[in-house]
């Protein structure tokens, strides 16, 4: 209850609160008990497992050690946290630990796969002849200082180049068709393309093998591999392009139509430029996929030790096939060459991916500062042009009344 003040007016409570000034609570700070619980649980788990491994039970193996340590760590951590937290908080901490470990495990394993490939291929990669010669005079017993994979690099580039020059224009055209010409036909095309993305890549290779290789009777040739890769990547590019084109904001196309431009003008001047970065990403990722495909190439391109620039005759080597075939050999130099070829492949894929990240990864219509500057400059130029135009017209006396 408050005492009733007889004097008229309002009384404000004093601003000075007794006690220390309130501090805003830091929500994300790391608290000492949390750190202690983590460190304590880790120490307890390590020492318990160590005791089990060395003194009590005859266990062995690094994997088992890590797994058991991890299990005990989770257990001890739960016990330690439950000393000063309630049930939901304990569960929250446990899930947090498990999710963190799963995320770290996935990233670590995937990075390790790449690192392992480079580690094994390092012997071959450090020699310059690996990139400048082919294997025509190199036997399986020759050291890695002799022979290289230039024939496979050239073969991969030619095959993937031909494949993409078929599948990118066709795929993007189909994507535009599915977006712009609605109807029963385009729905059917979309269904068939979605079905064909499920086609196992080896089946595409088998199709080309049964048509181009067996029926033509010309033996293996690089163009056949290119066709197989095109059959594999065409549905992928078409589908990815379809998804990207669908993300173009409707307002932009409607604005274009409202300004009186036709469908073709709208597609060419609004839709495709807006979706450009997404389309580029789709194409590049499709290329990366085509570069890494082994099984269609295995069935159609044949294997050779020579550089072959002609995609229409003679077998043509490619990097994944070289990697696959070299490591079947028991000789260390061959295996190193195989891993070296895999590394070259990885570098190609990494490069393409970096390019895709640089120009892609941006929503439709979002511009880089440079693009924005360019647009602004264009608009200034347009303004100057209009002003010249108006001035010229005024001089000629067309617009006498209005100016």
């Amino acid at each position: 209850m408050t005492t009733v003040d007889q004097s008229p007016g309002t009384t404000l409570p004093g601003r000075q609160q007794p006690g220390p000034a309130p501090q805003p609570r830091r929500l994300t700070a790391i608290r000492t008990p949390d750190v202690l619980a983590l460190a304590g649980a880790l120490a307890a788990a390590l020492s318990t497992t160590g005791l089990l491994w060395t003194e009590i039970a005859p266990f062995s193996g690094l994997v088992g050690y890590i797994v058991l340590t991890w299990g005990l760590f989770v257990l001890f951590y739960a016990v330690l946290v439950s000393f000063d937290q309630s049930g939901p908080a304990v569960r929250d901490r446990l899930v947090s630990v498990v999710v963190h470990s799963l995320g770290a495990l996935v990233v670590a394993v995937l990075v390790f796969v790449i690192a392992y490939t480079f580690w094994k291929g390092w012997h071959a990669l450090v020699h310059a002849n690996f990139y400048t010669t082919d294997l025509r005079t190199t036997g399986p017993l020759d050291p890695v200082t002799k022979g290289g994979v230039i024939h496979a690099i050239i073969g991969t580039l030619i095959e993937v180049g031909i494949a993409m020059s078929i599948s990118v224009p066709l795929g993007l055209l189909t994507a535009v068709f599915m977006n712009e010409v609605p109807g029963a036909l385009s729905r059917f095309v979309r269904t068939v393309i979605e079905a064909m993305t499920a086609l196992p890549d080896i089946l595409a290779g088998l199709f080309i093998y049964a048509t181009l290789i067996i029926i033509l009777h010309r033996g293996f040739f690089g163009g056949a591999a290119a066709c197989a890769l095109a059959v594999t990547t065409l549905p992928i590019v078409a589908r990815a392009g379809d998804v990207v084109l669908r993300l173009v904001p409707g307002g932009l196309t409607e604005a274009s139509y409202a300004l009186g431009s036709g469908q073709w003008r709208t597609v060419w001047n609004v839709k495709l430029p807006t979706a450009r970065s997404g389309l580029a990403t789709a194409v590049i990722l499709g290329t990366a996929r085509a570069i890494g495909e082994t099984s269609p190439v295995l069935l159609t391109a044949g294997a050779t030790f020579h550089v072959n620039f002609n995609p229409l005759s003679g077998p043509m080597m490619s990097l994944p096939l070289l990697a696959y075939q070299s490591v079947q050999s028991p000789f260390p130099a061959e295996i190193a060459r195989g891993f070296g070829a895999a590394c070259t492949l990885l570098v190609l894929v990494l490069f393409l991916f970096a390019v895709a990240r640089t120009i892609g990864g941006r929503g439709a219509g979002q511009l880089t500062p440079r693009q924005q500057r360019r647009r602004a400059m264009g608009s200034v130029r347009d303004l100057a042009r209009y002003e010249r135009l108006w001035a010229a017209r005024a001089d000629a006396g067309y617009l006498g009344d209005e100016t």
Partner: protein
Amino acid sequence: MGSGGFAQDEPISLFPEPEPFEGPESGQPQTPKKLTGRLSASDYAFRAVARSGGVLVLALMVLVGTFLAYRAFHALRKAGWSFLTTQTWNPNGGGFGIAAVIVGTILIALVAITVAVPLAVGAALYISEYAPRRIQRGLISVVDLMAAIPSVVFGLWGAFFLQWRMVSLSRWINDWFGWIPLFQVKGVTRNYTGPTATFYTSSTFIAGVVVALMVIPIATSIMREAFSQAPPGEREGAYALGATRWGMIRAVVLPFGRGAMVGGTMLGLGRALGETIAVVMIISPVFVIQPHILQNGTSSVSSLIALQYAESTPFGVSALMAAGLALFALTLFVNFFAALIVARSRSGAVSEV
């Protein structure tokens, strides 16, 4: 509406009856004008080109499908129903069938999915919910990049690194869980002390683990996308009601991403079923149904094609196509099912909050 001129006794209604709109010229109510688009010549040309492109791609895809089906039909007509039940593969003499290879394919894919899904869910949750903002974009890039890694790289890793290091784990599972028929290995009992490596190195289990590594990035990527789209309003609502982070995830993020979790799993399964090179590099092919996943020797449809196409007669190629088509039917079924589930889930839908 003016502020002044209300007649006092007229009742004021907030929603007055709309008066029939009178057209400016005629006294009759106007009917909506019929809009007809007229395409210009360039639009006609554009539509013709686009349609022809679509038809060309359609023809190409249908050609691939019908050619495979036509050639496969040759083999199927000869084999009849025994194609589904025969285990051996001798197209040029004796029977051939997919009973062994399709079981091997499915077992490898199931092992892969069993290993991959918990890891993928964990990684997706970590990236979308737990990872600090600074490294989040980098992690997304890493996972997307991993989806583009050639399968031969995973195959090399599996054949040279994993294969021999998995033996002790296989032995351990066999020792303790060997009473489950799935984990049985013929010829090895718990007290067996001879060389064990040759019993375990080319098993369904190891091939499945390698394929799992290829499935993880795809599944993680799809799940992460859906998790990160869980509506912020509902997230904050859960926090405001006092939920812990896990409580929020369980109440908001996981239900929202359930469709994507199933869909990502199924898409990964589709990839696992069709994987060729990595499996070929691990397994040693046998043509009997091999239900013991830890034991040497298994087979899959795509590795069958990769290993046999070169020695095949034209009829043998037809038989391989029949096997491939059976695999295609399987992946098609899985993919369509996945698309259906993803489309019906709430993931990506606009939140009401």
